[in-house]
Every structure is written in C-alpha cells, then in structure tokens.
C-alpha cells in the first residue's frame, strides 16, 4: 500500500511518515504543493494525506486539480481549520475524509485503513477468500479457523493480493505497493516473500490459494 504525505511542518511530516512506514506502508512525502501535485499525478497511491495550507499550491487547489483530472485516489485532508464551513469546503472539493490538527496517529491510521478498504470497495475490515479470513483492522490472518503468524511484509503482501481477489498482479505492481524503497528492476524479493507466504498458508494439506500466472504475476483465489 503506497501513501503520499503532503505536509509542510517538518516535525509533523516526519512523524506521520515514520508512523505509516512502521505500519508497513510505502510512503512518499513532500512539503511542497508543486512537488506533491507532481507525485500524485505520476504515481499510483492508495491514499493521499493532504495538508490544506502548504507552500506554492494549496492543498485545496491540488485536490481540485486531481478531481478535474478524474483521479479517484482517496484523499484525507489534514488541517488546523476546523469550522464546519471549512470542513464542508474541503469535503466538497473532493476530499474523502477530514482530519483536524492536532490528531492522534492511531486515529490517522484507522482513517487511512478505511480509505484503503473503500478504495477496494470493501465495507468490512474482514476479507474472506474460501477458508482464509483476513482482519485488516487487527492485521490478523486465520485459515480454517487457525491463526497464522505472519511478518509485517508477509501480511502486507497477502493484504495486497487479497484486496484484488482474483486479479493477477505483476511482480512490479506488488513491489511498488509493498516496498518503501522500490525503484523498479529485477529483484526477486516478491518471489521470495510469495514463497514464505505459501509455506505458512498451505500447511496441513490445505488447498493452494496463491496461484502463479507465468509471465504475468500472482493472484489470490480459491
């Protein structure tokens, strides 16, 4: 899951970025409106955290430009402006959520998760594929009623495949969503983690859920 953070106050930006990264999200960040607009126009993000008052181009203008470009990326506005009118203005400009400063990082994470789920048209935090149940709010995975212990990267990889249940994802697409510093190339890190996941999910002679499509990538399905 890749997230863009656009916030010009350095201590706040650094803390948000670090918090999201510690949660396993790939995060890009900037303090400039112009740069933020370039990022969001040239990369695919699952969520954008957008401060309203940033230098050069304001957050609201960026949001309006995105929506006029028909870019559906979920946007959470971050602002110290908390009057009803200001919230309405933000939401009517196309924001999906509005977070008032100062906010709790846990609340921010919860709202990010909601937006990611919405982005995949999942209303419930639970994703069920056959006997596999993933609780995206608790980051908990069970198969046939048995809890499976996954590392952070393994979980993110599984969540990425689960959100696109039945859809073939290329290695590059998976890498971009899961790895913070992925710059493209021929690394087999995705294959390695797919191998780890398979071992943990397919034990006890349970049917295979992660399928390989040669030359295309991987998909998760019954």
């Amino acid at each position: 899951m890749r997230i863009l953070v656009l916030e010009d106050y350095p201590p706040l930006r650094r803390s948000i970025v670090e918090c999201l990264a510690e949660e396993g999200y790939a995060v890009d960040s900037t303090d400039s409106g112009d740069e933020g607009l370039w990022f969001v126009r040239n990369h695919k993000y699952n969520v954008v955290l957008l401060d309203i008052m940033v230098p050069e181009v304001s957050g609201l203008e960026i949001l309006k430009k995105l929506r006029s470009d028909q870019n559906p990326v979920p946007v959470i506005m971050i602002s110290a402006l908390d009057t009803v009118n200001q919230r309405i203005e933000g939401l009517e400009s196309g924001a999906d959520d509005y977070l008032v400063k100062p906010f709790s990082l846990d609340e921010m994470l919860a709202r990010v998760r909601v937006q990611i789920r919405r982005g995949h048209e999942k209303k419930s935090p639970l994703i069920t594929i056959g006997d596999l149940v993933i609780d995206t709010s608790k980051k908990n995975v069970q198969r046939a009623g048995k809890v499976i212990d996954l590392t952070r990267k393994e979980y993110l990889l599984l969540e990425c495949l689960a959100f696109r249940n039945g859809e073939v994802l290329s290695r590059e697409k998976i890498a971009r969503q899961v790895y913070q510093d992925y710059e493209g190339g021929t690394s087999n890190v995705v294959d390695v983690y797919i191998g780890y996941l398979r071992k943990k999910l397919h034990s006890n002679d349970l049917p295979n859920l992660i399928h390989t499509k040669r030359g295309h990538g991987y998909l998760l399905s019954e």
Partner: protein
Amino acid sequence: MKRPSIRDRLLVWITFVITLIMAVAGTLLYYSVKRSLYSQHDLLVNEAATLILIEVKARNGEVYHEWQTSLNSTSEKSTKSMIQVWDLKTGDSVKSPSLGEEDLERQYGEVGERIFYNVTLPNGVPGRAVGILTLPVKQGIDGNEGFLPEEHPQIFVWADSTEELRDVLIKTKRAFVAAGVAVIFVSAAAIWLIIYFLSLAVQSFSSDLLSREGTEIGEPIPVPDHLPSEVVGIAKKFNALLERIDHFREKDQDFFLNVAHEVRTPLAGVKAVIEQALRQPRKVEDYQKRLREALNATENLVRLINRLMEFGKLRNARESMVETTLSLDLLSENILEKLRGKATENRLRFDVSFCGKTEIDTDEELLSIVVNNLIENAINYAAPNTVIRIKTSNVDRIITFEIQNEHSNMETIPETLDVFFDPFYRADKARNFVKKNIGIGLSFCKEVMIMLGGEITATKSSDHSLCFTIRLPAKEHVSD
C-alpha cells in the same frame, strides 16, 4: 441624569415664540387702536375748539369772550366742555363754569398751532385738551381804532373728558389678551399633536432598534418609507456603523481562527512526535532526537505566542513609549547591515538612497521593529538576482522611508493592498513554515505606526513590484 426630550423642547420653544409674537403683535395693535381713537377724539376736539375760537373777539378796543354767552345757552356744553382763555398781556383768564375754581393746565405753540395733550380734569377724570395761541378777531370798526390784536394774544385751552375712550381701550385690551391666550393654548395643543404624530414613526423605529438581538448586528435595520427624511439619514448612518462593526467582528473572528490555526499546527507536530516516540521501545539516542524535535516545535510555538502577546499589548503600550531623537537613515543603515548576509544568500543587491535629513522624535525600539520587518519581508519576497531599493526623503516636514522590490517572487500581487496589513495574511496563499513566516509582521507594523503617529502604506509599482512606505513627522527644529 434626565436627558432633554426633543418633543418637550420643541413644544416649549415653539409655544414661547408664539407667545412672544402674540404679545408684540397684540401690543402694537392695541397702541395702534389707541392712537386711532385718540386721533379721532382730537379731531372732534379741534373742530369744537375752532368753532369756539372765533368767538374770542375785539370789541370797543377790548377783548370780548362771546363764547361764554353761547356756552351758557347750551346746557350740555356747560357741563361737559371745559374752556379757559388767558390774556397773556394782563395774565387774566376767563373760564367755563364747569371749571369752578380750578384751572386747566395750559400748553401752546405758535399762533394758530394746535397742541394736544392729556390732562386730569378738575373732577379727577382723565381728559384730552387742545391749547392754541390765538389773537382776538376785530368785530366792527367802531371802538376798535388803534386796537392791535398782536398786542393781546390769548391762550385758548379746550378740554374734554376721555373716560368713555378709556373704557373702550380697556375692553379692547381685555379682548386682545383673551384672544392671545386662546391662540397660544390652541397653538400649543396643535403643536403637541403634530409633534406626537410625527414622532410616532420615530418611536416605532426606535422600538424596532431596541428589540434587536445582539446576534443581529450584521443585519441592517429596515428603513420604513414613512420615516422622516432627517431620521433616514441617521438610520442609514447607523446601518453603516452596523456594517463596520460586523466587518470588525468578522476580522476579529478571522484573527482568532487564524491564531487557533497557527497554534494547532506546531501543537500537532509536538503531539505527533511524542506519540510516535512512544509507539514502540526505542534507543536512548532515538528518544533524545525526538525530544529535541518536540522541543524545537515547542519553541516555534512559544515564538508565535510571544509575538501574539506583543501584538495584543501594543495597543496599550503608549504609556511605555520612550521617545528619543534619532536619524531614520542611521537606524535603517544599522538594520541593513544586520540583514545584508541574508540578502547576499538570496543573491540580492540593495540600492540605497538616504537624504540625510531624517531626524525624528520617536521610540527607537518600535521603529526598529517596523524597519526590520519591512527589509526582512523585502528579502523574503524578492526574486533572486534582483535589486531592493530603499529611499528616504524629507518633504514638507514629513520623513518618508520607502522600500521597493525590483521584482517580487509573489505569484500575483493582490489588487487591494490593504490586505497585506490584515493579521495572518500571507503573500502566498498557502502557509510556508520553511520561511518561518508567521503572517502578522505587517499587521504588527501597522499597529506600531499608528502608535508612533505615522502611517504605513503599500503601493503596486508594476505587476511584480511592490513598494512599502512609512511616513513620520520630522523633528520640530529640522528644516527642509
């Protein structure tokens, strides 16, 4: 204290003026009637006197009073008319019987001239008399040879009672007073009614005003069509005042919202840094790094709050101002020196023109804040490799300091330049924490300049050039 009422004042003053007019007019009219009656009476007295006068004759070389015979033959005349004739040569007098032992008062002029005057008749009633200096008329020739009338001048006085006239005048006076009092009362009542009906619209308007809630300040008062034009002006001015109050309320509201906003962002930073530090166990060095970051953010917050406090105190700081004589040129030069390094970093050049006659009596510390702010802003908002022009002048005892960016890095310069002096206005619509721009500097400068008795203005030289000017009165003894 009881406030005077316009209605009561109008009533009292208009009634007073009407009373005065009635009194003057009544008096004039009364005296006019009196004069007319007396003239008529004098005319009658004169006619009667003229008839009697010809009856003072010279007969047989002596003055003969024929009128006495005719007077005795008319009983009415003998009772009412009083006549006395004095011979100026002998001093003897002849009088009508009605005078008895009393004499009439005598007044006379030239021969034949009639002198009318008021007298009190022997019976004590007022009367009117006519005095004539006359010469006896010669009757026949016999016996009058050698008689010269000029040598026997006679003073003829005819007096008559004016009691009836006095009664008529008393009645006239009473009628005038009664009519005057009636007119005054009727006028006062009419005036009271007119004022009452005219003030109904004003009363209803003032009731509307009083019934307004405190939350309705922004809404103008509806001005009814029937409201008198004099009050419409006041109502319009009141509405304009309401509009201004509303404007200032909005500005205040914006100010507090902005303050809340400016405080919240660093606060969010501090909170996020601490929260993030506590999310998982970390090394001591890591904690220290985060605490330092939180401390820096707190210092930013303190800086902002201090500036806001200064801003708040400024309005009440007039008492603590310390006035000294200083040269604005010298003060600007010192500040320029301090900021030259920053300008060089931004590849900026100063073009300075000081006039050398900029001595003023002012608070050095406060003026330094203004000049420092203007120069620092010019540096922050100048495009790299451009010139900042600074000029001072002394014209008509007004010291002027101008600072102009040859080319500003602002995307657009707003049409209404007053917004620069609004608290938290920023040249770029979005905030820039990187430049550490709080956004109250120019607003602060404006407050300071008002305190110092000067002014600050912004003018647009071109699409990319902005000029800020401060003006202060020159020191008293400095000549141009």
